[in-house]
């Protein structure tokens, strides 16, 4: 039996894989590569939990992950549910302002949203994205998002506005996390080592 069975063909390597964060009161969060089985489970269980007015009510992660060489997820506990995940079809892009990690799709488990740990899980997910960006020697992060999320990204340290050299294809709100914001986010993953 192939060791790669149940996984996509191109498995990203990262020093952060299998890292575990103790995120009280939610327990342990482990960075994993989401498998096709995980994607199928998400696509089966998350859509009904998304509010009908959520902007991603029609998202399906299986095809997104299948075409993304960069794909990671935070999994709760050992073998538990996915708390959040992201992917990028490109990884790092070279821009006039330097190398930037292009964050394509990111979602927090609808059950971990506001009132149910959304603050902590969302912050940890973005912090791990930043750590991954720095691992790939990207000094910043670029992404597109919806108007409803502008305040949240600004609170995280992102800067709204056109990014030189990057044509955001969906014409949504472009955001850039510069070197300082990216480093600050990434350092949050270090917490207090045991």
């Amino acid at each position, binding site marked *: 039996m192939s060791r790669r069975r149940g996984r996509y063909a191109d498995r990203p390597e990262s020093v952060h894989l*299998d*890292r*575990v*964060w*103790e*995120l*009280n009161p939610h327990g342990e969060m482990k960075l994993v590569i989401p498998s096709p089985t995980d994607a199928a489970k998400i696509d089966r269980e*998350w859509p009904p939990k*998304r*509010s009908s*007015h*959520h*902007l*991603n*009510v*029609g*998202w399906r992660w299986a095809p*997104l992950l299948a*075409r993304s060489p960069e794909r990671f997820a935070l999994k709760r506990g050992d073998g538990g549910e996915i708390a959040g995940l*992201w*992917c*990028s*079809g490109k990884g790092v892009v070279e821009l006039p302002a330097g190398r930037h990690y292009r*964050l*394509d*799709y*990111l*979602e*927090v*488990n*609808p059950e971990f*949203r*506001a*009132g149910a740990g*959304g*603050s*902590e899980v*969302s*912050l*940890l997910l*973005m912090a791990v994205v930043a750590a991954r960006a720095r691992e790939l020697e990207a000094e910043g992060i670029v*992404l*597109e*998002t*919806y108007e*409803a*999320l502008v305040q*949240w990204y600004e*609170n*995280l340290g992102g800067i709204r506005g056109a990014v030189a050299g990057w044509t955001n*294809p*969906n014409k*949504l709100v472009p955001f850039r996390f510069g070197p300082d914001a990216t480093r600050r986010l990434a350092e*949050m*993953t*270090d*917490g*207090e*080592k*045991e």
Partner: protein
Amino acid sequence: MVKKNKTTLGEAFHSEAMRIGAPPESALAVGPGASEEDVVAAAHRSAVAAEMDDFHASVSKLMENHALRWVVFFEGKVHAEFDNQKDAYVGALTMFGPSVPVVVARVEETTSVYQTAAYAFHAKS
């Protein structure tokens, strides 16, 4: 046993999470693979939801002059009223076209059914 690769996120992390707050959506970033139709439909859903919230907040007042009538509601006010749902949809389309997130709803204290011409036009099965 303490896991070798385990990090505890302390009070500073939780304080920062509280300062930043929870995102209003579960989707936080939208990639280049999203179709324009998806993006447009999603934006409409969000706009319609906001308009519907305004409608619900106005129902008591609307009951004074529009009770049990089907209304075309947009930007906080009634633009037209009709006897039935079908005429209201057609009226909304005629007045605003398919791209404006208007609410078509019956004015009653327990109103729960709503659609818009825009959403109906863009909705995918």
